[in-house]
């Protein structure tokens, strides 16, 4: 089938019911998108289809024919990183890093439709699972990318402090 991935049209030998995730990972070697659960419960496989965040592990490839599929590999570039990628670095978000592609893609879709999300907006949109517990840094990084100065939500304390015993 013909698919449009990251702005390029690719032809793949893909059964109609094969989930998009495996087309990306095993047929196109776009391994930035991760497998986590296979039942759309964890969000590690999040990509954009026509600008919407979707969980690609349960989305048949045939459903995205003629649509614009974007993966983490196209979120930004070394020369022009996405604002979220810059914020992720500034807030030192990732630990093991496995869920972070999905987190970033979910966050990018959120900012696209809501450039200045509130904490509640972030709560509702960011249902991806992270076993390393990077959540408060994810929140801080989204606010930062959205222009942190405009945000008056609860302060996130991530700064370690040296305190004399």
């Amino acid at each position, binding site marked *: 089938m013909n698919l449009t991935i990251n702005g390029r049209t690719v032809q793949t030998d893909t059964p109609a019911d094969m989930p998009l995730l495996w087309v990306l990972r095993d047929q196109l070697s776009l391994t930035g998108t991760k497998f986590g659960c296979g039942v759309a419960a964890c969000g590690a496989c999040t990509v954009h289809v026509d600008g919407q965040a979707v969980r690609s592990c349960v989305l048949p490839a045939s459903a995205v024919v003629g649509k614009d599929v974007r993966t983490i590999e196209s979120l930004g570039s070394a020369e022009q990183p996405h604002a979220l990628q810059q914020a992720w670095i500034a807030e030192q978000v990732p*630990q093991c890093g496995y869920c972070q592609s999905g987190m970033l893609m979910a966050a990018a879709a959120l900012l696209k439709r809501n450039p200045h999300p509130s904490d509640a907006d972030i709560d509702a949109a960011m249902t991806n699972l992270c076993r*390393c*517990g990077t959540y408060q840094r994810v929140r801080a990084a989204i606010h930062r990318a959205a222009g942190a100065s405009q945000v008056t939500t609860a302060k996130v304390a991530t700064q370690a402090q040296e305190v004399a*015993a």
Partner: protein
Amino acid sequence: MKRRTWILSALGATGALVVGWGVMPSRSRLGSPAAMLPTQGDVALNGWIKIAQDGSVVLAMARSEMGQGVHTAWAMLVAEELDVPLSRVRLEQAGTDSIYGNVSMLLGSLPFHPLESEGGTKPTKVKVGEWVVSKLARELGINATGGSTSVADGWEPLRMAAATARASLVGAAAAQWKVPASEITVTAGRVQHASGPSAHFGELAQAAAASTPAGVVPKERKDWKLIGTAAPRTDVLAKTNGSAGFGLDVRLPDMVYAAVRMSPMLGGSVASLDSKAALALPGVQQVVALDALHGASAGFAVVGQTTWHARQGAKAVVAQWQQRPQGALDTQAIAAELQGQLERESGFTFFDKGNTDATEKSASKVVEASYTAPYLAHATMEPMNCTAQVKNGTVEIWAPTQIPSSARAAAAKAAGVSPDKVTVHVTLLGGGFGRRLEVDFIAQAVKVAMATAGKPVQLSWSREEDMGHDFYRPMHAARLKATMDAQGQVQSLRIKSAGDAISPRWMERAVPLLAGPVDMPDKTTAEGLFDLPYGFAHQHMAHVATTMGVPVGFWRSVGHSHNAFFSESFIDELATVTQKDPLEFRRSLLQDAPRYLAVLNLAASKAQWGSALPAGRARGIALHESFGSIVAEVAEVSMEGGVPRVHRVVCAIDCGTVVNPAIVAQQMESAVVMGLTAALWGKIDIAGGVVQQNNFTNYPMLQLAHAPVVETHIIASERSPGGVGEPGLPPIAPAVSNALFALSGQRHRSLPLVA
């Protein structure tokens, strides 16, 4: 067995005798240049450090990056001593030399009470125990990442290796320029003399390799520029653009994919397999039967064009399974059996102080409580996987493993070759938490690769297989009993707990060299109970080691993960009974443990303990030492829709010398979230031998919306580094549970908190 006897025989006395530690001199961990991989243009100066032509530094990385930041922390130690920017340190996977073995991890298995080593000098028995185990560990060379030991273990050898390399480079420059070495400076990787000459490391490396300087010592603390700073992690960029390479991201020419199905009944076997329908599917190539390997249940793998084809094939195989010969595992039955053994057996005494028996007989008041904790799965975000190629009598594996030395041995055994025919590539790990100290999935991948005619195969588990075939945190039960005198002072504390011991089973599966003919008492069962800092005059702590048959493994913070819930909840109960504030009660018991007291006070003051909170909120506190670090946490909790909601967690930690405070803070945040998930919901049930939870839908995880704000405060210290990856986890369950008690007056004695 007497305690003294087994301390000396612990950890595989058989292995110790084989390697003859007793007669061997202590060995340096500097290593020879030959220990490093030979690479074109690079010059190795010892077993850890190579200098590249462009002057950058190559560090042999002997620990696995699973989120804890070791790739950054180790590079910082080396960059500090060599006076190069952190960005100039490249990592190369360490080879197989025994210098890369983790000595600190084995030292952590010694069952000494931490208060014994609080003072300036350690008691003789501690010194002897550590000497013996260090020797053994040094000979065995087990390359493993676990026990929160990476920085502690690398602290001396890495700084020495880098300092020695620096001295060689400076010595080479001094000889070339005919100036005293003492007049040479090194700044940002540039070697210079005030009279003019300068060179980068690459220009001096060949000459430096010819000398091994003597009398080298690492920098003094006052001269550190990098250690102790919040340097940005070196792995963040790759983890924000999809380029970070995890085990599942390995892609090789002609690679095929394999899916695994194992007996859904733990420990079960294959009665029959009908592969016809599977092999008829497009893209499905082979079905390979798998024996029960290294603790896994038996099953089969299906090889296909992609992971999806392989998984479709695996579903289509018609398998008949057979229950394990000892009968089906069942957690309800195990829970009852655990209570029975806890009642009947006296167990192994890990700690005995004063005269608890006599004190109990003369007590004015007795307080008793029973606590339990369930089995838990690791649920790393990246499920188990390994990529393997078996070709021309050699084996190559690419694996997210915490224990490459055992992975190598397991791969060799599976392929029937000697270990020197096996090459292990350690990838990034999508979480480890102890699960990847096992080698079951390694052996499976090699077995399948032996059947694919030299093609590389990536074997991976579905989430369902991963959750249903874990090595679970063991179920534990404990009874705690305290007595008071007529004035209401607590006089004695007795704790007895029961549950499966992990270490003996793990050794059999993953490190057979350490496994002995009989099970030695396992410190991990009793850690967090026998080693409390509180100054009760009479204490007795024993553990009953059971063998229930469920595969059990090391789960982030191991015994501490449940034992801190038992001990720190019960301490809170005693505060209630004696009508004292939980903070004041703990303070009054820490006269002989000033570092613990300081940590407790720091957490309490930063959390404004005692100040007013919004209606419906309460605080709980817990204090716990593990892996060489002391942590106190204060949790602010309310109830929302009948479910506890944790708003804020203030952490204080004394982890000795800090290499990177930002990574310490990250690890505290991480441990709090993982521990909170477990405390609220974590539970694995087994019925008919089958694990009942199979995905995140019924083994839920904390999400961003409910994640607390975590603050970290670090005690400044000049002690040697303690652990950081695990110590933040144990206190969260009791801190939350204690807050719930403050809120509602209801005491939780069983995990998870949300039934």
